[in-house]
């Protein structure tokens, strides 16, 4: 399946949670499948930290550039694009095509940099709703996301309950724990204290705070994996100069790469620093920190979710310690307390938080069955 990136511009300013607003912005998006005549088969996919609107398929000129949720979405896949009209959208402040910190601020004529307004999950959902307006879609058959994307899916059911029939929330949480915010803060400090960061205005200095981005990514990566998977993949194996060869002896070095895990993390960090924007990293991690629908209800999530009328499917993974199953259960309980339709699968997968992006028959099977029901519902 070939994907074609598109863009929609919005002249009307968007009021943000912070009190600021943003005008003259555009959103990058992709669509897959065909919108049916009564426009009842639309599914919106929300992305997490480092993903984009390129959710499924490949680009005609880049056969290797598979969408980040290609295992889940496509013709004949669990979210079947032969039946559903699937929309992937890049969020405001991201660095993959939608208006973000590296773009020009129409108010100053200068690149936003650190002046890009702080955006929240709620702001993203508002922007996504406008995109749907532009596409002529009133109601979503489903909104779906993993991790931070799951928070957006949950927020959709609260901000636009009448526009969402189903919400599929995978490996997510009703808010971040202190430990989770702590990880985000370490990553942010790594970026902000990089001498090349220049207070977020590094573009005009012609540099990129790559060191900070690398470390931010390394920390992130550790938290996306489980201890077991990391041990199984790398263990205490030493990195050999010759690929495939096994090295037995220590080098007795403190700064060179000694263990395979170090090599892996450095590689991931290097790769990430080549394509990800430092200001975007700060913005998105902050949006994660801020998300907390129970905040205006004295921490009572059941009260916060009282207005959600969608039907829910939640999925978590047993070894995910960054968005642990108990966090998903909190959402399930709040929905139960409100007597909402909800199903919850707790997949016993070894891969930690990353599991939500991987192929697992039980996980994909449950999502497939759920979307089959949505599809049949629409037919009836």
């Amino acid at each position: 399946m070939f994907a074609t990136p598109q863009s929609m511009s919005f002249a009307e300013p968007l009021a943000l949670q912070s009190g600021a607003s943003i005008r003259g912005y555009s959103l990058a998006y992709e669509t897959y499948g065909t919108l049916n005549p009564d426009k009842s088969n639309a599914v919106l996919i929300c992305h997490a930290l480092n993903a984009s609107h390129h959710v499924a398929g490949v680009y005609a000129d880049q056969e290797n550039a598979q969408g980040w949720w290609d295992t889940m979405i496509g013709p004949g896949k669990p979210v079947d694009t032969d039946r559903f009209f699937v929309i992937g959208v890049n969020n405001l402040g991201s660095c993959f095509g939608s208006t973000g910190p590296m773009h020009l601020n129409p108010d100053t004529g200068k690149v936003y940099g650190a002046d890009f307004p702080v955006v929240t999950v709620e702001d993203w959902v508002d922007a996504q709703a406008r995109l749907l307006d532009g596409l002529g879609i009133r109601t979503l058959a489903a909104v779906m996301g993993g991790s931070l994307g799951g928070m957006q899916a949950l927020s959709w059911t609260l901000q636009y309950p009448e526009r969402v029939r189903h919400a599929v929330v995978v490996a997510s949480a009703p808010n971040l724990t202190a430990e989770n915010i702590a990880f985000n803060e370490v990553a942010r400090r790594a970026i902000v204290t990089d001498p090349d960061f220049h207070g977020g205005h590094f573009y005009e200095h012609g540099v990129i705070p790559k060191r900070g981005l690398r470390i931010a990514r390394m920390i992130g990566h550790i938290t996306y994996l489980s201890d077991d998977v990391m041990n199984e993949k790398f263990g205490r194996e030493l990195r050999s100069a010759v690929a495939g060869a096994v090295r037995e002896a220590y080098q007795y070095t403190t700064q060179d790469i000694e263990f395979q895990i170090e090599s892996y993390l450095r590689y991931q960090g290097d790769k990430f620093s080549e394509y990800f924007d430092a200001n975007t990293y700060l913005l998105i991690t902050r949006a994660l920190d801020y998300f907390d629908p129970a905040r205006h209800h004295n921490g009572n999530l059941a009260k916060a979710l009282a207005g959600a009328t969608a039907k829910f499917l939640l999925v978590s993974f047993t070894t995910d310690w960054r968005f642990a199953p108990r966090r998903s259960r909190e959402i399930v309980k709040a929905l139960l307390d409100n007597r909402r339709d909800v199903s919850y699968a707790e997949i016993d997968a070894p891969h930690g938080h990353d599991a939500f992006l991987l192929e697992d028959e039980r996980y994909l099977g449950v999502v497939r069955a759920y979307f089959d029901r949505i599809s049949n519902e629409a037919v009836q």
Partner: protein
Amino acid sequence: MSDRLTMQSIARLVPPGSRVLDLGCGDGAMLDYLQRERGCSGYGIEIADDNVLACVKRGVNVIQLNLDEGLSMFDDASFDVVLQIDTLQHLRNAEIMLVETARVGRMGIVAFPNFAHWPNRLSVARGRMPVTKRLPYQWYDTPNIRVGTYKDFEVLATKNRLAILDSYGLQEGREVRFMPNARAGTAVFKFERG
């Protein structure tokens, strides 16, 4: 215990329109039946992946949980009826779960294989553990880690101050109200907190 007559018999104990929690709901057939035939709503609890999938396929709300971890997710009297159909015998903490059933449900309904059914007694009298249609497992591979009788349950219910509202045996889908402890392969109890 997917036998249709058995399911219908137990379903008759559930008041129409009830909000139901089905502990160990299997493939969701009972909840599906209660929703379609008796206007009930509710959720099933299951631990097995294949059963969770089957429930989603049926369109029955299912929550994947290990019942041995308790029912802390559910508030007191938050359901009209809590079902434990062929579940009790698999639970390590069977007594706690029985009390939990009465806490979460305004009414509890439990069904389980009655070990005192006469063919079982006969088998034991001959010196062997029973292997029957109702108890098809060998003693060394049975998932039924709690083997009890109709009478045993009455004692356990009394000990935990549960008020039994109705009880009977089920055999081949028929209700057995005369000497159920000897004459029925399945024991059924409907109860509430005393």
